[in-house]
């Protein structure tokens, strides 16, 4: 490492019951005599009062540039310590030790001492990160799509003073909404048909000085990274280039293929129509006397049969009744998804006389006879004399641009990126295994929207049904391309009111991303992080594993040398590349293979005659660590032999650490990360899945060392799993005790 001159000091906190449970003199001895930290100070609280003042003075004067604070979890009091100049390292002996272990016990004391040893090793092997680059970057926002979502996004951004360029493919703004007027109620009391207000919104945007609108325009290509997206805007007259800080994709939705509705009679009569066609009839004042509206239940063609279809059906039924109170309207459903405030809307339609009919549509004939298996009467009953049969359809996300002939390659790339959990390309260059699920037919036709000039392909990664991939619980607007956000129905089916709200969320994120990139800071979840991966190219084997495994497409290969090149502001600092590198040559200033190896080695391993096993827990700091802290707050007793190291993401765990631990004499290793799979909760999307994949190879390593495979385990923990995390660690402890000690113990 560089010339950083370390001036560490240990701050031993005695408050919060720590002094009553532990021998502080012994801890001070460990920190200073054993780990060689020059000085240790004590106080009843370092988070406030005199203790904090001392700490602050030490760091501001420059006497100390690495404060090792021994006390509470790094998740609390973070604000106070963030203000301090220099590096703050936290050794958690409150939540993880004092609150989960019996007081004044030999093993409790050993655990606290080991946490201090690890923190000291962490200090010795890390240094404060520095910003990667300080060039000013663009604070201009690109919004793609001129429908409700895009218009709302542009307006919301402009209200914050942001400069916006809005690009619309067609010749007019407004999207679908411009064709229609009445909409599902989006404001209290959530009843009655409301005007969609699209004309006003278009006017606001057109009059807005901060917004430049380009109609008849598409994106030719996009390269660069947050703060520096260089984008080609193409229209009939030629093309132009512009630089943007971040991008919002609000391309909305399109009709589903009506060929898929033939089994519901579509095509047999002009009066069997989709809800979209019917919307037009209503707008034209063409009101039927009798109508059946079928909420399309077909799981095959519309696996995500959405609440929007239900709301549209209710709306259209109500529109008929309001125009003609004597009309007869049946809404046929298998699942009525009138969730949330739509309940009031549903009741309103019932009061108006719309009949909701639960049943399965068996057939629809050309003479408009609809045969329904009425679940409530338990019989097949034909419905006759109808003027119109309406079939609700799904919203197909515009995650591709259907106007552009899809290049063969483009399609393949989207297909490969459809499942976030697709198997990895392995280090030996083996082909990825075929994906287990067989929804290969779901490839979205069309060209990429942004045509990203990324090594990972031109598309924004999507989920199985073509909706943009995002962490649906924590970061819904996020795509897997940093600085690019989606809002509106390209993300999930939604109503006009929902799309407007969605646009607000995406705008906040997009603005945050531009500003953070401007300061070389990471966006969420590691908001404000300055560290970034550095590549030790002297030993890099150009294996490309880092470029392939980065969940955010942050790393390119240098076209000439083939070495990895980082696009720093695309990077979320998850460390997945670091975990992937087979020669451990990727490192962060304050998080690197060496540092964690030293932390692992710093733990005192009792010799075999003590019969005290040691269990290494590498836990994801997004969910598993908070869950562990909560277990402490709830005073759940946890296995006394565990030693916990927080990791940025399970994806950052390298096999090197596992090997180091086994050679060092640890008896078991537990990896704890977020849920992987199609409904993943990993904060870095793929990190946890990568770790699972990597660890599946650990078995061989263990066998070659003549050890039981059960010694290394991976568990998925959600932030709320406070009981499960304690139970898992305790039962893993029992398993390890059953297996006996690691034969490699010195």
């Amino acid at each position, binding site marked *: 490492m560089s010339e950083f001159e370390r001036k560490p000091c240990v701050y031993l906190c005695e408050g919060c019951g720590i002094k009553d449970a532990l021998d502080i003199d012994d801890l001070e001895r460990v920190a200073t005599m054993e780990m060689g930290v020059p000085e240790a100070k004590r106080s009843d609280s370092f988070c406030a009062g005199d203790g904090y003042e001392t700490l602050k003075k030490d760091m501001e004067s420059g006497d100390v540039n690495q404060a090792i604070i021994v006390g509470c979890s790094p998740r609390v009091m973070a604000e106070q310590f963030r203000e301090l100049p220099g590096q703050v390292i936290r050794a958690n002996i409150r939540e993880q030790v004092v609150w989960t272990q019996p007081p004044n016990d030999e093993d409790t004391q050993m655990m606290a001492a080991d946490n201090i040893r690890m923190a000291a090793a962490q200090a010795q092997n890390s240094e404060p990160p520095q910003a990667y680059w300080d060039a000013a970057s663009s604070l201009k926002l690109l919004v793609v799509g001129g429908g409700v979502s895009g218009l709302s996004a542009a307006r919301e951004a402009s209200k914050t003073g942001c400069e916006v360029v809005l690009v619309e493919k067609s010749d007019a703004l407004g999207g679908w909404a411009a064709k229609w007027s009445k909409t599902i109620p989006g404001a209290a009391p959530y009843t009655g048909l409301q005007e969609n207000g699209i004309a006003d919104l278009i006017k606001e945007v057109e009059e807005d000085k901060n917004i430049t609108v380009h109609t008849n325009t598409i994106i030719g290509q996009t390269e660069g990274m947050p703060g520096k997206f260089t984008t080609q805007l193409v229209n009939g007259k030629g093309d132009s280039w512009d630089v943007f800080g971040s991008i919002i994709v609000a391309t909305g939705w399109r009709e589903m293929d009506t060929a898929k509705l033939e089994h519901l009679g579509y095509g047999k009569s002009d009066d069997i129509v989709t809800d979209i066609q019917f919307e037009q009839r209503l707008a034209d004042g063409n009101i039927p006397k009798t109508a059946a509206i079928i909420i399309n239940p077909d799981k095959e063609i519309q696996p995500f049969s959405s609440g929007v279809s239900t709301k549209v059906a209710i709306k259209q039924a109500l529109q008929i009744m309001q125009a003609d109170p004597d009309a*007869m309207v*049946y809404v046929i459903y298998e699942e009525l998804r009138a969730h949330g405030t739509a309940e009031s809307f549903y*009741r309103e339609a*019932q*009061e108006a*006389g*719309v*009949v*909701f*009919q*639960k049943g399965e549509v068996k057939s629809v004939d050309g003479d408009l006879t609809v045969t329904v298996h*009425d679940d*409530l*009467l338990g019989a097949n*009953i*034909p*419905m*006759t*004399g109808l003027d119109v049969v309406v079939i609700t359809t799904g919203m197909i996300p515009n995650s591709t641009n259907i106007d552009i002939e899809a290049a063969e390659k483009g399609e393949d790339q989207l297909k490969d990126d459809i499942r976030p959990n697709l198997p990895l390309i392995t280090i030996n260059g083996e082909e990825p295994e075929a994906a287990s699920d067989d929804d290969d037919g779901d490839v979205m036709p069309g060209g990429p929207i942004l045509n990203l000039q990324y090594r990972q392909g031109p598309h924004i990664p999507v989920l199985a049904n073509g909706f943009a991939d995002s962490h649906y619980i924590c970061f819904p607007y996020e795509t897997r391309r940093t600085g690019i956000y989606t809002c509106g129905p390209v993300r999930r089916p939604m109503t006009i009111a929902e799309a407007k709200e969605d646009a607000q969320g995406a705008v906040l994120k997009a603005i945050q991303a531009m500003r953070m990139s401007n300061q070389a800071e990471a966006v969420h979840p590691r908001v404000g992080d300055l560290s970034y991966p550095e590549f030790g190219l002297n030993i890099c084997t150009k294996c490309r594993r880092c470029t392939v495994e980065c969940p955010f497409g942050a790393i390119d290969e240098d076209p000439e040398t083939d070495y990895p090149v980082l696009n720093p502001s695309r990077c979320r600092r998850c460390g997945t590349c670091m975990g992937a590198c087979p020669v451990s040559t990727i490192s962060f200033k304050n998080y690197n293979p060496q540092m964690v190896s030293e932390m692992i080695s710093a733990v005192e391993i009792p010799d075999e005659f003590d019969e005290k096993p040691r269990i290494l827990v590498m836990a994801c700091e997004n969910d598993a660590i908070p869950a562990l802290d909560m277990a402490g707050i709830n005073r759940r007793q946890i296995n006394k032999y565990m030693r916990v190291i927080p990791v940025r993401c399970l994806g950052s765990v390298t096999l090197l650490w596992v090997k180091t631990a086994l050679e060092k004499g640890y008896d078991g290793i537990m990896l704890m990360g977020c849920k992987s799979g199609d409904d993943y909760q990993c904060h870095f999307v793929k990190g946890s899945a990568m770790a699972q994949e990597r660890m599946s190879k650990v078995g061989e390593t263990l066998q070659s060392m003549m050890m039981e495979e059960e010694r290394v385990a991976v568990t998925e923990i959600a932030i709320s799993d406070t009981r499960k995390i304690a139970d898992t660690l305790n039962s893993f402890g029992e398993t390890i005790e059953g297996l006996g000690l690691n034969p490699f113990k010195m």
Partner: protein
Amino acid sequence: MTAPLPEVASRKYDLTFARWVRDNVEGGDKMNMCMQCGTCSGSCPIGPEMDNGPRKTFMMVRAGMREEVLSSSTLWNCTSCYRCTVRCPRGIKVTAIIQGLAQVAAKEGYAPKGENASFANAFWWSASTFGKTDERLVPTLYYFSAGFMEGIRKSLDNLKIAINMLKAGRMHIGMPHTIKDKKGLKAILAKAAEIEKAKG
């Protein structure tokens, strides 16, 4: 009942009958709010004896099944206990609608001729004569309405219940109890008949 009952629908899922019920039966205006949860039928103590129960009856009305609804035993088995009305999450006056439909059925000649009618006749005789239902006379009349042997059989079947009721003081031996003002009752009934007649 003002509007005449509509003709039998020529097709299923015709809302004419449902609309007629909405406009002409007490509580019918809220019937379309029924979300078919089944709380009413599930709560009904007579549910197992009914052919359809209130939930299904309402669905049948909405499906336009006039004949089936009016000839259903549900209308006659209801004891007016009001459990359904109390429990309906949509606040529908279930009992009122069932009773209303029974009235329509009676008027249109759908009322069953068999046991239901005999019981109703026995009940009505006792109520209009004494102002009270007599626990011996009503069942006796009802049992023997199906013939002498049948009457003996049914009486013996229920002997044990009768003895228990006697012991518990729920039934007595001797003259039937009557209300004090029998003349007043007669006047009330006459007035009610007059109103019904005026309504048509």
